[in-house]
Structure formats: C-alpha cells, structure tokens
C-alpha cells in the first residue's frame, strides 16, 4: 500500500477526501494544511494517521508515516517520492532530483481528453494534423500556469515536439505579466498546434480542444457541453464538473508506475519539454519573432 502525504492548500482537501477511498494500492496517511481545524477534519475523513499545519512539520516529525508527497499546485498536481526530501512546490525541484515524480496536470488525465488520446492510439483519427486549444480562466488566473500544461498536451496529442514556435501576448492593463497568450507550434512533418490561454472577464472557465486527424476529428468543447438553468434572473449555464476524476486518474497513474517500476506517463521529461517551450514563448514574445526549437520529442 503506497502512503501519501497530502499537502493541501486551504479548501482543497475536500476533493481528496472524496476520492481517496477509490485509490487502488494507495492511501493518504498524512495531511498538511494551514488551518488546524481543516487539517484535523480532512485527516479524520481520510483516516490519515497524522496531520500537520505545514509540510515541513510532516517532513521533520512524521517522515515515517508516508512514502510520497501529493500536492495540488498552480502548475498541476505534483506526486513525488518522499525519499526523505522536504516538500517543494516547484516542479523544477523534482525534475532535478526525482526521476519518478508525476506532473499530474489536469489535461493529461481528464476524462474529456482521455477518449481523444485513445482514439489517436487506436488509429481512428489518423495522424494528427492540428491541435487547437482555447483555455480561458477567470481573471485572477495566471495564464503562464495554464500554458505549460497546454504546451505539454499539444505535444502529447501530436506525439512529438515542435520545431517552430511563434507567440503573441497582450498585457493586462499596467501589469507586466500578460493575461492573454497565443502560441502557434509547427511540428516535424506537417502537424501544427494553436493555443490561446486567457484570463478572460467573468467568473467561469471555458475550455475547447479540437484534434483534427487525417481520417477523423475529435472535439471537447465547453460550449457544446453547457447546460441551462432558467430563472427569474435569466438564463445561466454550467458544465458538469469532473475534475476529481482527473485527479484520481493522475494519482492512480503514479501508484501504477511505482508498482510497475516505470516512470509515470507525465513527469520530469514532459515537464522539461514544456519548460523549454515556455522559455521559447518568452523569447518569442521578447523578440516578436518566431523561434526555432530543438526540443527532445
């Protein structure tokens, strides 16, 4: 049984409490979250043996109670073997130190995306020609965090790394960091990808993914999947939430990779590739020029 220490930002423990009992071969045995009451509550619900108000406390006082760190971050879920290393929220830290860590960004493990990848693997869509992604989040979101995951997703779906990258961005008012980035990738062969990540006005996220293959196409589109609520205030819409299923799949992938003694399907290699592309995005934005890339596949 693999034992996890959950490092849960305030309010995020609820999802893990709901999904933990569905893990096969794994269990959350330690919890660290800032609020004592929440930490105790989540630990009880998870039947975890220890809780703490910080990962440092867990590491220094309860390191015999867990085998791996498990933490949602802005850049996606990180699951990393403990191996007596303190927790670090920066994926770069794990990328440098731990070959077996998992970068569980939601899109790799989303039930919405998985059928697309399966259809590609089965040859139903033919070789991918175009991956098109719209990823809009509410205004407070950092588009850079979204972009890393989408760059990885595009490469995963195409099945290789790009050789050309062109990026354009718009700043948010006076802020130095852009709140809108569009990235255009050209791959070896004739595949291409176009990604736009935005902090768009409004409270809700919007996501659409199209994969256009030589013999078929696949689309996930929040627009197509919206439901309607009519009330005195007018019409409102929502998309059914299944983020927890993606989280569950990501954690399960880590457990399975450990038991099968193989690297997780998305880890250091994919993180480094995404980071190299993100660096190229930065260069392209700074120079207003297309960048040639030499990124490992």
């Amino acid at each position, binding site marked *: 049984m693999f034992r996890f220490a959950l490092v849960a930002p305030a309010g995020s423990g609820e999802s893990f409490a709901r999904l933990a009992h569905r893990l096969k071969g794994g269990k959350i045995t330690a919890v660290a979250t800032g609020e004592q009451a929440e930490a105790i509550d989540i630990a009880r619900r998870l039947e975890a043996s220890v809780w703490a108000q910080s990962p440092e406390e867990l590491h220094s006082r309860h390191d015999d109670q867990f085998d791996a760190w498990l933490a949602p971050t802005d850049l996606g879920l990180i699951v990393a073997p403990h191996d007596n290393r303190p927790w670090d929220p920066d994926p770069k830290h794990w990328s440098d130190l731990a070959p077996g860590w998992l970068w569980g960004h939601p899109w790799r493990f989303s039930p919405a995306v998985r059928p697309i990848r399966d259809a590609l693997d089965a040859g139903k869509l*033919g*070789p991918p*020609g*175009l991956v*098109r992604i*719209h990823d*809009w989040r509410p205004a407070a979101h950092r588009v850079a965090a979204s972009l890393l995951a989408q760059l990885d997703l595009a490469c995963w779906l195409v099945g290789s790394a790009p050789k*050309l990258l*062109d990026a*354009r*961005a*718009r700043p948010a008012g006076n802020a130095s960091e852009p709140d*809108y980035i*569009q990235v*255009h990738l*050209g791959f070896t062969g*004739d*595949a*291409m990808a*176009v990604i*736009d990540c*935005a902090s*768009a*006005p*409004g409270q809700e996220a*919007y996501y*659409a993914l*199209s994969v*256009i*293959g*030589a*013999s*078929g*196409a696949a*689309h996930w*589109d*929040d*627009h197509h999947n919206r439901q309607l609520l009519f009330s005195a205030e007018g019409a409102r819409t929502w998309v059914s939430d299944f983020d927890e299923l993606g989280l569950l799949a990501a954690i399960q992938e880590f457990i399975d990779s450990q038991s099968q003694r193989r690297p997780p399907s998305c880890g250091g290699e994919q993180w480094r590739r995404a980071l190299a592309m993100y660096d190229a995005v930065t260069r392209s934005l700074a120079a*207003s*020029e*297309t960048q*040639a890339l030499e990124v490992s596949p």
Partner: protein
Amino acid sequence: MSGRVAGGALPKYRFAVLSAVKHDYVPRAVAAHPRCELAVVADDADQPQWVHDRNRQLAEEFSVPYVIGVERALEEHPVQAAVVSSQVQRHCDLSIRAIERGLHVIQDKPMSHSLAECDRLVEAARRRNVRFLMWNRNGMPAVWRTGRLVAEGAIGAVRAVHVDFYFAKDAGPPKSHPQPQPIDWQTHQIAAHVDGSDGGLADRPLGELEIEGVYPLAHLRLLSGARVKSVFARTARHFHQLNADNNVDDLGSLSLELEDGVLATVCVGRIGRPSHPNLGEIKLHVIGEKGSLAVNEPRPETAIYYRGQPAGEMRHRRVAVDNDHLLVENFLSAVESESETLLDARASRDISATVFAALESARLGRRVAPA
C-alpha cells in the same frame, strides 16, 4: 382617415452575369432577391466550350439571353450591376471591365490569385465610385448577431478573435490512396461543380487558404474592423490526394497581429466528410475587455435522424440561413447610400494580401507582413 404614401415601389436592379462557371449560387442569390433580376449572361469568346455550355444552361434556366462577348452584352443590355463567378484567374478582370462601365459588382471569392489584380480592382472601384461586394458568410445568422453584439459594445473593446473553420467536405480520395495518375486539378474542379465544391476552379491549383480563407478572415474583419499587420502560418497537405498531388494545402493555421493591438488566430481545413456529422465545426471566439463570446456559426440547426439515413446525409440542417438575402440587401443598401459593403474592394484586397503573406510565412517558417 386614409391617405397615400408618397413615392412608389423601390427600384429594381438589373444584373449582368459575367461568367457563371463555378459557384453559381452567387448569381442565383442575386436572382432570388425581390429587387434584383438577371438581365443577361455573358462571357468572352475565347473561353472553352464547357464554359459556354455552363453559362448557356444558366441563361436558359432564367430565360435570359446568353451573349458571347462581355462588352457587347453590356452595350446591348442596360444593367446597373454585374455578378462575376468565373474561374478565379478571371475574377478581377471581368469585375474591372464591368466597373469601367460604371457598374456595381458582386464577385465570387477568392478575389484573385494575384495581388496586382486585386490592386487594379481597388483602384478601378475607387476611380469609378462604384460598390463592390465579395461573397462571404458574414450574413450567417450567428455571425451577423455576433457582429452586432461586438459593435454594440457587449464585450467591450475586442482583444482577441479566433475563428475555426473546418468544413467536412471531401475533395476526391483521401491522401492515403494515391491514384495511378496524379489527379488533374482543373478536371477535378470542373467535375466538382455538381455539389458546389468547385471554388478552386482556376488556371493553377489553389489551397484551401486561398479558396476558403476569405470566410474566416472576413469574420475576423467584421469582428475586429482592423487590418492585419503580420501573420505566422503553417500549412499542410493532410487529407486529400488531390491536394497532395497538386502541392497545395488542405489544412492551415494562422496567428495574426492586427492593428490596434488585436490578436487573432484562424484555423482552416477541408477535413473530409467522415470527420464531422454535418457541414463541419465552424466557431468564433472573441475576447473583449468586458466579456467574451463563443459562437457556433452553423447554429441554429434542426436535427433529423432516421432509420436508413444515408451515411453522407447531414444530420443537422441549418435554419434561418439568410446569408444570400442579407448580402444582396447589404449590397443594394450600399449602392443606394453610397456607403461601403460588408466586404468591399479594399477589405477583400487586404484579405487576399493576408492569405498570400500566410502562404509565404508557411514557406519561410517566420512571421510575414501582408503587402
């Protein structure tokens, strides 16, 4: 109490059809408008027999004369406007010859495969002060409404526009099925007239960016009102043997910088019939300062499914498709008010320049500024 309203019926416009060898839905759209009538069909004498046959067929259908000799037709038949739907390489020349006689012109897309020809037309239209409309899809109900919402400020100033234009038509056999002989472009286009997918009828092969790119780029123009400053593009021959044999794209993606800082992307592909149950995935995404829009261009639709439904029959039927009427209405309104049309000569020329820059960008692997 009762009375009479001053004035009378609105004037009717007589059109000369100058070649109708492809996309004859354009002259048909003109003929269907209650204030328009076709007066004559004409073409040049040096055209091959199949061109004359096709023109004559349309003339007979509308019970109007077919005249060999464009200038003679325009002298003998008084008209106020012309509709041009010839082979692509003749578009501008025929339009300019009509414009030089003071006629307003509705022309099929693409404007031309030569930017010099586009420039010649822009200059002629300016000099003769006539209206020009290039055929487009900005009158589709969802696009029309989106344009109005943006113009009314519903989402504030536009920051980014994205147009996805994947249409699920085939262009002959798939790429994975090479034929004994390379497929001849013009022969294929002439045969494709039957189902209206002969937009690439030209003296050289045209990729989908050239043939269909005008639609999403016209949407972009409608929603942003801005000209393109630079474009980065990728193209591929991904789906059809016709495109592979003739070395022209059937899939393309553009990343665009527009004036006023607006950013945009456009994806265009003739993705093949199996890739969509209906006409295709065609969408607009607009991000503004105060809000955003995600719009399905084909909707509203009525869905019809039944036992024994042929595989090729579209399951969803578009409803309230008034594009033809709205475009002709817009053209007449522009003529009468001396205002610009939805897609005038200058805007059409700029779209062609963007397409040519995109093709160059795809060749060079870097960003290119349209001429």
